[in-house]
């Protein structure tokens, strides 16, 4: 497939507005301003673009929920908090092609009538933040940001807001709290951000990769976008592959490419001649899959049918030497560390699960621990404001479903069978 989202990656000076303009950059924004906001929203709806942050919600539909009242302040927030373990795609866009993101944000802001846009970027991405800040200055200097863009009368300010170490801020309402200068704790929904978001004003929150698709849908058309991948989840997709493979990395492929093709044809297969054991398809919140599932197409609906999810497209491959109890422990420890503490089932539940998994892993597990874990899962899932602990439960349930005997072995033999 011809590269779209990654077409400028690796080109010299790809960071600069000069190089971006030479490649036809900001032409899509210019064309977008010849359309009405409603026409733009319709175009995105027609393209079938679904949010690349993980939820897979229709982007055009999300934009259409923003009230049309011109007297209301509205906001666009780009979710660049990229924190789902196994995911490293948005950073590649931001550090190689920042103007693609900015152009997508200008078009989106115009479509929803936002006068201010924030890029919420995780604090660790200091380099990406610097690159974006520089690119934003360049865009202001060329008149693509600021007052009266393309003579349309439309004005837009754009800022980078750095997080500072909190996975939960990738959850959209926690992200909004964080921009407001608060602890990043999720809000109760409804009201949804489209009606009451940043500063209680209508707000759209879109992922970096989602926004990066927008200029191409304007310049190449909704029909072009729909020719790539499956009908209900169209478009190019960035898949991140890490773990026990020969060639880890980021691969732009049509949505719906099978796991087998991604792992074996693009990521070079399992390294060191070892046998494949399991794969996490969409970041650590996504339940793992095993050998018999490898022909599953990597798109929202196909993975949901398999009881897992596309999530962020973070694929983590594990070979036959991997201890699934240790894997479950590392994943749960992460969720426990990142729980914001607002909801008791998550705060206490993930802590307790991690404690049990730690003792199983270290060989001091007790009879009944596996059943206790299963019981805890039932008392956590669906009982919290946000899906963080649902992710912890789904990941653990996936491991237990396919590798329960390994957990039991740890209890009975105080060691690993892998």
């Amino acid at each position, binding site marked *: 497939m011809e590269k779209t989202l990654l077409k400028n990656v690796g080109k010299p000076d790809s960071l600069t507005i000069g190089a971006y303009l030479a490649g036809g950059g900001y032409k899509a924004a210019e064309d977008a301003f010849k359309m009405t906001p409603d026409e733009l929203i319709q175009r995105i709806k027609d393209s079938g673009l679904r949010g690349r942050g993980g939820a897979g919600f229709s982007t055009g539909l999300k934009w259409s929920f923003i009230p049309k009242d011109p007297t209301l302040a509205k906001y666009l927030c780009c979710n660049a908090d990229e924190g789902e373990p196994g995911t490293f795609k948005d950073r590649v866009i931001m550090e190689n092609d920042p103007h693609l993101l900015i152009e997508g944000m200008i078009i989106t802001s115009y479509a929803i009538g936002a006068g201010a846009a924030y890029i919420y970027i*995780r*604090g660790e991405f*200091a380099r990406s933040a610097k690159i974006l800040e520089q690119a934003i200055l360049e865009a202001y200097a060329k008149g693509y940001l600021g007052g009266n863009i393309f003579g349309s009368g439309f004005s837009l300010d754009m800022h980078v807001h*750095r997080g500072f*170490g909190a996975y939960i801020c990738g959850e959209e309402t926690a992200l909004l709290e964080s*921009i407001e200068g608060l*602890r990043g704790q999720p809000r109760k929904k409804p009201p949804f951000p489209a009606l009451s978001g940043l*500063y209680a004003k209508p707000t759209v929150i879109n992922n970096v990769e989602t926004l990066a698709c927008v200029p191409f849908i304007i310049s190449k058309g909704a029909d072009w976008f729909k020719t790539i991948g499956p009908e209900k989840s169209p478009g190019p997709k960035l898949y991140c592959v890490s773990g026990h493979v020969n060639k880890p990395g980021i691969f732009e492929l049509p949505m719906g490419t099978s796991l087998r093709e991604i792992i074996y044809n693009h990521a070079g297969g399992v390294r060191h001649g070892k046998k494949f054991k399991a794969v996490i398809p969409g970041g650590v919140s996504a339940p793992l899959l095993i050998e018999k599932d490898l022909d599953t197409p990597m798109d929202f609906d196909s993975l949901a049918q398999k009881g897992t999810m596309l999530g962020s497209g973070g694929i983590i491959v594990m070979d036959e030497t991997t201890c699934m109890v240790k894997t479950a422990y590392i994943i749960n420890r992460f969720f426990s560390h990142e729980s914001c503490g607002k909801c008791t089932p998550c705060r206490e539940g993930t802590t307790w699960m991690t404690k049990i998994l730690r003792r199983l892993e270290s060989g001091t597990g007790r009879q009944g621990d596996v059943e206790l874990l299963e019981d805890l899962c039932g008392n956590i899932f669906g009982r919290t404001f946000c899906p963080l602990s649902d992710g912890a439960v789904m990941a653990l349930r996936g491991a237990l479903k396919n590798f329960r005997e390994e957990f039991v072995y740890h209890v009975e033999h105080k060691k690993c069978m892998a």
Partner: protein
Amino acid sequence: MLSANLIEEIKKIQARYHSKKSACMAAMQSVQREKGFLSKDDMTDVARLLEIEPVEVEEVGAFYTMYNVEKPVGRNHVQVCRNLSCSLLGAEHLVRHMEKVLGIKTGQTTKDGKVTLSLVECLGSCGTAPMMQINDDYYENLTEEKVTVILKGLK
């Protein structure tokens, strides 16, 4: 006490937002960049500038893990990822090696104040695992040999 430069910078940050309180995170980042960590007095000064209560700044400092609240770190803050992709490719092994090279345990700072060694969750660079961050920079595809050279080269 915040320097005149910092006060100027924090005022500029406020202009990006609808509310002054929104500037809290970036203001604290600026203070930490200049001073290496956040003292209680500095957080109170930030609160005064933003016309909010000191506790509103302190709770932000306590929530986000990258703020070094009343806890100076070494000139080089070495943060090693311990999450799944890095662990699969030997992060634990690497950390033990680093503890040996530095003569400290994770969570500690060398006596000369040069290096603090910490374990952190996913840094979003799983395709180049195992990896670590030293201050603002990422170091990727690490091996024992590579890490030894990097650590010995720290100023």
